[in-house]
């Protein structure tokens, strides 16, 4: 580290000398831009930066240059862009995923009833084409999102809690929600916040009939049926993949598209945004890294080899699998990289969600029976699964907030996790499964053997099928038959509205972001497949299949409504703990083990990159770890 500083001071000194002619003492830019500034193509760095740039510091002050190489899985992998480049909303999370920090918004105010949010934009922030970013753009975005012809959906045009925008001045605006929206800041600090800062009025307005009478004709001239399709092609919402196919689209990211992503692209490349509005505390315009090179590959094996060969600088996504770990571990020297720690947000490796809304009354009754679920849970030898599938990584765990979460509750996490076939049998007996057939399978009340068919997508996580194959034998020992139905993911989703499943398998999302994604704690979203019909009653998305929930679930829903309305985080936590208490009491879904930590590949010459970070969709790492401050030595 010592050496790093020495090297750096030299670099800084040189840039300082270069900038000495300018009026501001400390603002430096990448040498990559010098020629453009000299030729007058670009204004000097001081004019490009806002008067009050956002100052972000890494562990050390970096130096400019280099290319950050990573790998995208096929063309449709917009996730990796969100997680690296595109995470620039009004606000952002801190590195610990605890506090919401200012980003494009310099400051905000929340009304006590949590209905009104007033934001003040950073003054002088410019889009990548040099146009100032103002409330006009915010207003335009809201307008477009609310246009039914523009296929996007988010909190902006929400129907359950409609929002209205009020522009106060060029930099100040106010969102007003019909109902209290206590978690709004957390929402927009996550990926949902990328919607509102994604469209520039000047550029996108030209495709919208309201601002361009000829929009429809232009669209047809460009080969599109109507303006809406053309608009969606040029100015897709938030982080939709095809946004990155348009290099002309002005953005607020640290890098702008160089070679766009398209169906034929072998790579998507980015170059630094000369108008980026963040600096380090020494006044160097960020990012340090000049270019990003995202290899587009359908071949996981190619990405794996690239990483092994040191041709990937920082990556966790796609390649950091349990199975590959020994490989990457051994390859550190040859590839000149090391492994960083990644803490998953998932609480559990596998969640068994029995369909409590099953159409078959016998199964419905059985799956709603808590004794049945407890019996199954005790029948699982979790330690064995952990040893076999995860080489001893992890611990027996239910679907509960992770130890890192403020909602961690040891009892909730550990209840019914001990392996005890005797106890399991007692509970299954108590659930009414006392009779057995010749094969030793218990009989349900209608005389049918107790067979649970579980849908699983092994293509998504190969270890699921491994765990289930072991569980199959363990359940068999207590007289329950588990049939594995390994299916395509489309089918997996198609089966939900039709209610055509006994049980489905997924990972334990919501281990850290329990408050934002409580799908396993109560019937919260379409992903709560254990109570799909109750969810519909709560959300109202598919009223035709909605069913009134059981009382305890209704109580949770009511409590969660209060959570959403509460602006005070402390009170919110209090309310949510009440939701979790009911979850603990009712034990709706069965978990297996705590999701073990994953790892990231970090090239040894990449500095300021996090040695440890969370990984979630709502906390789209590594982007909240400020990659703009990373640099190559």
């Amino acid at each position, binding site marked *: 580290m010592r050496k790093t500083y020495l090297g750096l001071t030299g670099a800084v000194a040189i840039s300082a000398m270069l900038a000495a002619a300018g009026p501001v003492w400390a603002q430096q830019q990448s040498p990559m831009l010098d020629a453009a500034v000299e030729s007058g193509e670009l204004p000097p760095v001081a004019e490009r930066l806002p008067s009050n740039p956002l100052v972000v510091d890494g562990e050390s002050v970096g130096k400019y240059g280099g290319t950050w190489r990573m790998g995208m899985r096929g063309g449709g992998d917009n996730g990796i862009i969100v997680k690296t480049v595109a995470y620039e909303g009004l606000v952002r999370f801190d590195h610990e995923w605890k506090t919401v920090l200012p980003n494009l918004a310099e400051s905000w105010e929340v009304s006590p009833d949590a209905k009104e949010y007033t934001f003040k934009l950073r003054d002088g922030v410019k889009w990548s084409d040099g146009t100032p970013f103002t409330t006009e753009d915010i207003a335009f975005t809201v307008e477009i999102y609310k246009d039914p012809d523009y296929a996007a959906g988010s909190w902006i045009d929400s129907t359950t809690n409609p929002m209205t925008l009020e522009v106060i001045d060029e930099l100040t605006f106010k969102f007003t929600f019909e109902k209290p929206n206590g978690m709004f800041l957390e929402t927009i600090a996550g990926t949902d916040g990328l919607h509102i800062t994604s469209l520039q009025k000047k550029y996108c307005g030209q495709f919208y009939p309201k601002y361009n009478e000829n929009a429809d004709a232009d669209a047809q001239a460009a080969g599109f049926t109507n303006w809406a399709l053309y608009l969606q092609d040029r100015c897709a919402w938030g982080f939709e993949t095809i946004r990155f196919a348009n290099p002309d689209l002005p953005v607020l990211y640290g890098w702008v598209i160089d070679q766009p992503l398209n169906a034929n692209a072998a790579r998507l490349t980015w170059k630094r945004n000369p108008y980026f509005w963040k600096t380090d505390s020494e006044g160097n315009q960020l990012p340090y890294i000049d270019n990003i090179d995202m290899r587009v590959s359908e071949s996981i094996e190619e990405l794996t080899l690239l990483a092994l060969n040191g041709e990937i600088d920082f990556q966790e996504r796609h390649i950091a699998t349990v199975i*590959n770990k020994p490989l990457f571990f051994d390859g550190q020297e040859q590839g000149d990289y090391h492994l960083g720690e990644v803490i998953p947000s998932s609480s559990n490796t596998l969640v068994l969600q029995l369909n409590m809304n099953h159409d078959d009354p016998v199964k419905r009754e059985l799956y709603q029976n808590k004794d049945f679920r407890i019996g199954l849970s005790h029948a699982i030898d979790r330690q064995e699964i952990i040893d076999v599938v995860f080489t001893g990584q992890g611990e027996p765990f239910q679907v509960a907030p992770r130890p890192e979460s403020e909602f961690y509750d040891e009892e909730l996490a550990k209840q019914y996790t001990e392996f005890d076939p005797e106890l399991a049998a007692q509970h299954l007996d108590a659930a009414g499964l006392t009779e057995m057939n010749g094969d030793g399978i218990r009989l349900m009340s209608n005389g049918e053997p107790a067979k649970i068919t579980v849908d699983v997508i092994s293509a998504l996580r190969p270890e699921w099928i491994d765990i289930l194959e072991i569980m199959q034998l363990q359940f068999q020992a207590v007289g329950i038959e588990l049939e*594995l139905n390994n299916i395509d993911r489309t089918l997996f989703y198609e089966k939900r509205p039709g209610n055509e499943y006994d049980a489905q398998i997924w990972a334990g999302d919501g281990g850290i972001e329990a408050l934002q994604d409580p799908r396993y704690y109560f019937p919260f979203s379409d992903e709560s497949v254990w109570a799909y019909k109750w969810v519909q009653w709560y959300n109202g998305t598919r009223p035709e299949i909605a069913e009134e929930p059981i009382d305890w679930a209704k109580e949770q829903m009511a409590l969660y409504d209060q959570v959403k309305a509460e602006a005070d985080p402390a009170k919110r936590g209090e309310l949510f703990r009440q939701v979790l208490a009911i979850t603990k009491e009712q034990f709706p879904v069965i978990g297996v083990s705590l999701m073990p930590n994953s790892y990231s590949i970090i090239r040894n010459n990449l500095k300021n990159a996090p040695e440890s970070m969370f990984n979630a969709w709502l906390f789209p790492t590594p982007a909240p770890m400020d990659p703009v401050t990373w640099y190559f030595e």
Partner: protein
Amino acid sequence: MMAVDTIQPTIHADLPKARARRESQLGLMWRRFKRHKLALVSLWVVVIFYLVTLLAEFLAPTDPGAYSARYTYAPPQGIHFFAVNEDGGWEFGPYVNGYKTEIDPVALRRTFVIDEETRIPVRFFAESKPYMLAGIIPMSVKLMGLENPRDPFYILGADRLGRDMLSRVIHGTRISLSIGLVGVTMSLFFGIVIGGFAGYYGGWFDSAVMRVVEFIRSMPTIPLWLGLAAAMPKDWSALQTYFAITLILSLIGWTELARVVRGRFLSLRTEDFVTAAQLDGASDWRIVTRHMVPSFTSHIIAAATLAIPGMILAETALSFLGLGLQAPIVSWGTLLQDAQNIRTLATAPWLLAPGICVVIVILALNFFGDGLRDAADPHGR
């Protein structure tokens, strides 16, 4: 003396005696076949593999699904048949070595060292838990077994869950080879019926069939597979899927056989013995089944043998694409799916065993089929 008779041009076999013709033809073919040493060896290889499919439960040391936490990715033990006894002499006493194991929590793996000191005797025809051989014959003896079933027994190594590769490969053989056989049987049925009638009647029916064949062959197979495999009903069981996959493969595979059969029919149609039978007033069906088909059974067998490898390869390719058979079904395709990553190549190459089986069986089937073809028709193809 037989050989002399057959090249003697003055002796003409009595034509309508189809049975006699066929027997002598098959006998002749067998004699010619025996001359191809490679083909003969291949025949035995194929027979052995198909025996394995019948006796899978007996041959497999353990259950293919039996996992063991302690032995994930255990390397192959091999098997030793002779032990050095106290006198320094050799004696028959099959055994396997134990493992010394260490867990590396950072790299997330176990490291195994074969422990030459530990010798675990292997017993032949060992008692085992009762099972049903091929699903019908109750048995409680396995070919090989250990005294203590808790001891590691991984002649070909273990997979990521500590399951015995040998047992899995043996059970996979059953699925993959039967897919080949069932698929080819179905293809053969379609091929003979459709190709036969096209060749026998000729005319518009023939050209229509040939257009269909041409059409099917000009479709790239991958999208056909994808479409058909994806269209399979949602709640089919593994077994149903298995048969559906077989059917799909044979729906695409029959065209080649149909072409062969049609060609044969076309050339046989004008042969004297067929004309003779027609003049005798035999029905079409009788002519086809009694006179024509027997006269090229050998060709059909050869063509069918050569078609099996295609089926087996197709099964592995489908599994690779994540279509077709899926775990927990054990087939060579699904086993190879587990092996298709850099990690396996780098650290657990023994997981490629099913791939080697594929190569061996396909080689054997090809040599066997080639030998059959040469024997069936020494002059042409």
